Each structure stands twice: as C-alpha cells, then as structure tokens.
C-alpha cells in the first residue's frame, strides 16, 4: 500500500473502558458487547486519508491492569499520539487517567506527543458530564471527544482529529526534518 506517512498511536486507560472496542470499531467498523480483556499489548493498523494524503496508523492497544504497566510502558517509545480513554458511566476511570498522563510523561521519548482524551460509552447512562471530561483535557492541553464504540459515534472523528493534529504539529511546530521522519 502506498502510504506517505506512518504514525504510532497508543491507547491507554483503565481496564474495561473500551480501548479494544474502540479499535475494533475504528478498524473493522464492528462491535462486540463482550471482548476478552487484552493481555499485555496488541497491535492493529489502518490506513486513513488525511487531506488526500494516505497515512498508516499503527495502533497499539494496551492492557489497563496495574500489573501490566511496566510491560506496556516499554511500548510507549516514539509514539506520535496517545488516546486516553475513560468510561463516562464510571467517574473513577476519569480520575485514574491522571496516572496515565504521568506514566506517559515518564516513558514517552517523543516530546511532541499529541494526546486525545476520549469519553467512551456515551450510549450508557452517563455519570461523568461532558464538562468534566473537557476540564480534564483542558488542564492537560489535550484534544477531547466523546464516543461510543457501540454506536460508532465519535470513533472515526477521534482518530481523524488526532491524526490531523499530529501532522499539523509536525508541519508547523517543527522543522521539515522531523516531518520527514514520519514519512515512509
């Protein structure tokens, strides 16, 4: 496949917030009510079109369990973007995202990583308001979106926003050389 750029995207967040489901919804347009808990790290890819440019997204799914932190953090290397997922029906999962933000700061090797906060499961009764999610994203200077892997709502948009932002950032903040580093 003729891709112009390759991006590495991480999905992080508490176990059971729907990281794997979001990836499934995005890559295959599919949904399963129950999905086995991810063990360690999994990988998926999808080619997307950003303003007429083909970009290959290598999406790294991580297990949310505490025990896996050491293992998963070793895959954070050189990621261009991170999607931090919480469950809008469970306030704890948003509070826990703080830990992931710290984790990212400690282990990422890319100073210009772009982060997107996703409030997932908006098809379920909501216990976290949109404003709370927004406030979190604002505090950490991240993108914010709400989604439902079940209804597909917001899923494509989430990846599109993130991809565009990464490419935009590399074109505007940095010099062309680093942009070249994205290109195949």
């Amino acid at each position, binding site marked *: 496949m003729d891709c112009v750029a390759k991006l590495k995207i991480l999905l992080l967040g508490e176990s059971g917030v729907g990281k794997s489901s979001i990836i499934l919804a995005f890559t295959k347009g599919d949904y399963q009510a129950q999905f*086995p*808990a991810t063990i360690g790290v999994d990988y998926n890819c999808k080619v997307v079109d950003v303003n007429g440019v083909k970009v290959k997204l290598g999406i790294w799914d991580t297990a949310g369990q505490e*025990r896996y932190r050491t293992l998963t953090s070793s895959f954070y*290397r050189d990621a261009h973007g991170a999607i931090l997922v919480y469950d809008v029906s469970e306030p704890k999962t948003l509070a826990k995202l703080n830990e992931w933000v710290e984790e990212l700061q400690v282990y990422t090797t890319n*100073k210009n990583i772009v982060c997107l906060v996703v409030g997932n499961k908006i098809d379920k009764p909501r216990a976290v308001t949109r404003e709370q999610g927004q406030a979190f994203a604002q505090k950490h200077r991240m993108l914010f979106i709400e989604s439902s892997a079940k209804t597909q709502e917001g899923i494509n948009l989430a990846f599109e926003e993130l991809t565009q932002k990464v490419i935009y950032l590399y074109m505007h903040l940095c010099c062309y*050389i680093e942009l070249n580093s994205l290109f195949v």
Partner: protein
Amino acid sequence: MNEEIDEYDIYHQDFTTVSEWEVFIARIEEILGEWRLAKSSIPKSAVEYTKKWITKTEEILFLGQKYTLSYHTLDFSRSSDDSEGSEEKPLMTHIHNGLWEATSSFMDDDDGSQFPVSNWFGLKRFLVLYPSFPLVDGSLIKLVMSSANIAFANVDCGVPFFVKIREHWQHTYLGFYEDNQYKISFDTIHLKRISNQCSHLSGLVSLFKSKIASPVALDAVVVSTKFSYELKDFEAFTWKKTTHSNEFLSIDGFDVKKLIELPFGSEKNPTSSVLLNAIWPKFRECTIVESSTFSDIDPLMAPTWTITLKMREKINCQLSDIIQKMMNLLEDNNLLMDTLGLSRSLGLVNPLHKITEAPITISKLVKAAIGQGRNTSEFKGPIADDLLMPLLYYIFPDAVEDDTFNYTEQLEVEFKQDSSEHKLCSYVKTSPEDGLVWRLSVTAARLYDAGGLAYLAHLWYEFAQELQYRWERRILVPGVAAGIPNARTCLLHQKLQLLNCCIKRALEGSSSFAGNSSEDEFFDCTDDEDGEEQPLWDRPAGRLNRLGEAMLKNGAPLFVPRTQDPAPKTEDQLEEDAELMVRLGDDAKASELRARMMSASLLSDMEAFKAANPGAELCDFVQWYSPRDWKPEGGGSLGDRMLLPGNPWVEAWSVARPVPASRQRRLFDETREAEQVLHFLRSRTVSGAAELLLPAILKAGAIKAIEEGVTSGTNSVGGVDQRRTYEIAARDLYEAEKEACRALCMRTVLGSSVEGKPLDSSGRARVLHATGGSLPAPVRKEFTLRVKDAVAPQVMRAALAADMTIVGAFTERIVCL
C-alpha cells in the same frame, strides 16, 4: 516570431526560420510570464518586507552558451486589511523610494541577497541574467542587453532587469527599469585600478553631475562617506589563543585532566581583518573638500566610528574537528576488533556465533586492581600502559582507592518535556552528565583524534574486557543511572543499565542460594498458622503481603504473591519485539498469537498466585489482578468478559500450576542477557562503535559550547534516523562553535560596544590606543552622492579600494511626442 497575423487568416505560421536570437527572447518572455512579473501582477501598495530572499532560477541556452535567469524577491507579509486602505503607487515610485533609503547604508553592507545590486540600489525585487562564462565581448553584451530590453517591454515587466557582464568577480551589472514615463539605468563600472579622476570626492562630484541629464542647482548634492582603516597588529588585539594540544601523549607525568576535556574554539586567529570605519553620514558637497591635492577629511573628526570584523571563510574549530573525525568513522563497516587483529580470538569472525566462553585475556586494569601484576603474554595494544591505566581508572574510578574521579552518587538523566526551550543538541539522546558513557565517549574521541583507530579500538577492547570481568565477578558498573534501561538515554547507556540489571539479579540469585532456604520466602503472619496444618504440597509459598481485607471465595485471606518482574530490555530489543508483533499482521489470528506471546508473564503471575493462595479460583486472581472484572456478588464472581468461552485468561488459569516465583523458570535470563550485551559491544563494527559513542560526544560538545558562552539553540529537532540526527547535531555544533569564536573576537575588540553600531567615546579611545594613536592610510573609501532633481532621485556610489567600483542609478523622463 511576433509577426502580425491577419485576423482572418487561418492560424498557421512557419517557425522553422526563426533565429536563435528570437528564440532567446521568447524564452526570456516565457519565463517572465511563468513567474508572473508583469507590472499588473505585482502588488503596488505598501507591504511589510522580511529579510528573507526568495529566489527562482531558470536556465537558457543561447548561442551554445548557458545563461541563468534568476528572480530575487524579499519575502513580504501582506496583511489583507491594510491593502485596501493604503494607496497604490506606481512601481517606479517604490523603486525610487527604495533607492533613496538605500543611500543611508553602505555598499559593503550585507543584505543577505545573492547579488549586491539589491543593497546598492535598495531593491526589493530584481531579475539577473548571468552567463556561465565571462561576458566581455562588447557586441555580445549589446545583443544580450537588447534581448532583455525587448523581452522586458513585451511582457511589460514590473521588476528591474540586470545583466551580469565581464568577469564574475568584478561584479559588474548593467540594469534598467522603465514604465511609460521614466526610465532608470543602473550602471556599474569596475576598474582594476583607481583612475586619477575618480580617486577623490571632487572628481566624483563632477562625474556625477555630468551623468545627470537635467541641470542641478549648485551645491545640491548630498554626500555620505565612509573611510575604512585596517587595524594592524590585530592579531594581538583580537585573539587570545586557547589551543589544546595532544601533548599528553608524550609527557611523563601524564595528566588525565588534559585528555578528558573536549577542546573548543579555533586554534588559529579566525579573523581575517578588522576594519575601523570612519563615517560622515551626510554633508553638502562643498563643506568637505577632497581633491587630488588636498583633503579635509580627518578620520579623527568623523561623527561616527564603527568596527567591522571579517572572519575567515573556513575556520578550523577544534571541537568540530574531533566530532567530524568521529562522524567519518560511520562509513567504516569493518569490525572494530579487526583493527587489533582480535576478531578471531574473540570469536567474532562468525557474527552469528555467540560467545559463551570467557575471553582468553583479562583486562590489565583488573589485574592491576586486584594486585596480580602484569602478565606479558596477554594482548598488548598500541596504547602504552602508563597512559592506559590512568584512563581506565578515570572511566572505572571504583577500581582504585583514589577517589579523584569518582562518579557522583545520583546520576540524573535530564529530559525536558517543555519543547519551547531549544537547547543546543537537545534532540540527541543523552546519558547522565559526566557518567561513564560520557567519560568513555569523550576519552575515545580524544584518543582517536590523537592516535588513530588503533587507539580507539584498544580502548574499546579494554572497556569490553573490564565489563566482562565485572559481570563474572558481579561488580556493578559505576557511572550508570540506576534502574531498568531508560529509552530516553542513548543505546550504550541502556546496554550498561541492562548489564547492571543482570549483575544485580545474579547477586540476588547467589545470595539466596547461599544462605536462605526457600522457606524464608513464606510470608509469616498469624493468619498463616493454620497453614501449618495443610499438607506440605499444599502449603502456601511466595507470599508478599495481604491484599487489604480481601478474601478468597473459599473464605481465606487473599495474599499478593511475589512475582517476577518483566525482563528489562534495551530499545533495540524492544524495537525487535514491536517489529515482530507488527509482522504478525492485524487479523484475529495474529491477535491471538500476540496474546500468547504476551501471556508468559500472566501465566507466571497466575502460578505465583496459586502458590500463595492454595485453593484459589480464577475470580480470586481477577480480584487482585484486574479488579474491574471482579464482582463482589456471592463472595466473588467473574465479570462478563472473563466468562467468554475460549478466553485466554481462562485458558491460562487452567494450565497454571501453583509454583512460587522463586521456583519458576526465569522470565529474565541474566546470564544470557549479560553475555549478549558483552557480545554486542565486542562485535561492533567501527561505524557501530562510533554510533554508540557519538551521542555522548555531541552532548558533551554541546555542554562545552554552552560553557563557552554559546546561548543560541537551534530549531532543529533531529533527523529521520540516528545518522541524520548526528549530522544535524554536528552541523549545529559547528555553527555554534564558529559563532562563539566570532563572539570572542568581537568581545576582545569591541568591549561592550556592538558591531556595526557607533562606538562610544571610550570605545574610540580604546581602538585609537590599540592603533598607537594614529591611523594608517585608508584601505577603502566609499562615497555616496545623491540629489533629487526635477525628475527623480539620482544616485551614484563609489567604492575605492585596490580596485574601484562605481555604480549609479540615473532616471530620465521618456519624452513622448
């Protein structure tokens, strides 16, 4: 070719007979059209110009010779709001304004443009047609000029057009610009010697007046003058030599400190000349007299003095030299140990063959450190012992009692999240400052610089031998940050961190074997008492602590087991892992395979859990391991997704046997990993070793540059790959070093004054003192003569040095009757 065609004729024309000259003109027109340079396409309202030149070029063949047509324009930012408000003026007015403004600067100022014409005439945009050969033949010059004229008129060009003539170094340009009212001619005269008539102001004024077509009032010409004096003995004045020699090699009382510091700056005076400019910015032609016989001009009376420092084109910077030498090694793909002829004895001939045997020789350092004396039969490298030993003690200071060079306790690795601050070479992966990797790398660079590749190889060999020894004797490597390999540090540092992990693990392993029985790993607490009654095979093992108040489904307290940590890995290993996972593809099957690859540590944890909690069920394990998949109902049950048939958690639980972590197969095989690190280091090619050493050399160089007063970072952010990043860093450092040299000279000469800005009275006194109170004859004189007559500004400028350049821009009205 531009023959009129009768409108009613069918369009057909014969181009077979057009002359080469016509083709030439047509080609120029075509290019001007392509670049949209007609008057109608050029903005006529005021715009803000930046200082950046944009250039377009095209090549044209004419009479078998190559010509280049180039367009140069200053980049400008046009704010859309203003464009409506500000009035549009003809392009000619803009050119005249620019010309007038330019008279306040001097001909040798640099405006960053490729051609001096923009600076001479204050042009914001211009075209130059220049041949690849010296255009000296008068009739050919006329032919080219008239071609340019015709093309210019045909496209109604809105940009001054220059043709470069004569030898290239003479910088002679003939140019013109016209609209339907006025015509400007831009002329250049270059003479290799100064003509008598033009050697002084009076002569130039009369020449100027004769060139102006319209009459000028007496005494209307305004003159500015700059006389430049070359300061003699500036060598002593500008330059404090800071050389760095390699004399440590021969001196008996060898001083490590001399070797371990990176040199910086230029060895020779980097200035090519220092000019004192005496400037009279503005006076009427009659107020100062300078003729062939008499001169009023006294530099001491000049209102303004400035200093211009000219640097040599190529400065040899000592730091950059060393770095460049290391960079050159990146091309050498031979094994580094081949340099010493050791590849075979180290088992490196077949790169696939892993070393499993201990090397034949043991580091000399080690021998010295443990007091065994020297064994003459062992490998003898090119570096003499009395140089080698202090170096190795410097890199491994814990091997001697003397603690001059001990590493600091806390080795921090700085990593700035904040990308707004661009520190020099911040994109190069670092390692702890003044840690082992730094010392090794800097020493290696200095040794290579002094003694060539053999010296570098010898140091590398001894380094690897010492690591081997430390691994065998379980002695930690000093000067390395604690913990598992940190992917933000350079690879060599990560490898050493991994080696230290191996050594630590081996130490822990042997100590538990030596003294403690495995029973000690039981968690002793009162709750455990009833465990005594359990049969031996079912006794809990490897408990770490209780998990709060959590209970197993069978009512027993839940214990967190001791577990194995995931194997520490360096970035190249992680890269391999990630690649393997990517290669598996992205279908369901691949996903399953990946889950299997990942299950090793899950299985190990399950086994440890079973051992610590006899009779536990999967839901108990999940309560500890993945609490969000555990439901408290009925003493504990599994969440929905854990109940999915064929789910890998259930599968793993069913095969897990109760085995405490201490008796499990190691997830991290320290012996294998350590040997791989050692083999990795020994089997480097020359370029591979250079790649490992360069990050710390570049970083140390950057720190050195900052110490020397370099403040500017760059906007570079590194390259596509490591090698490119090194190249960018080396370039940035060279620029920084050059800048520092220049700044140093500048400070010595100017004190607190700024280059190009008028000196204050103390600055003038300083300079005058340095010249011994009087100035020599000027090396260069420059005059700008200007007048606004009835037509437009008329300007003539003359620069008189060993040769003479006179340029003029004269506007005349085009008389149309």
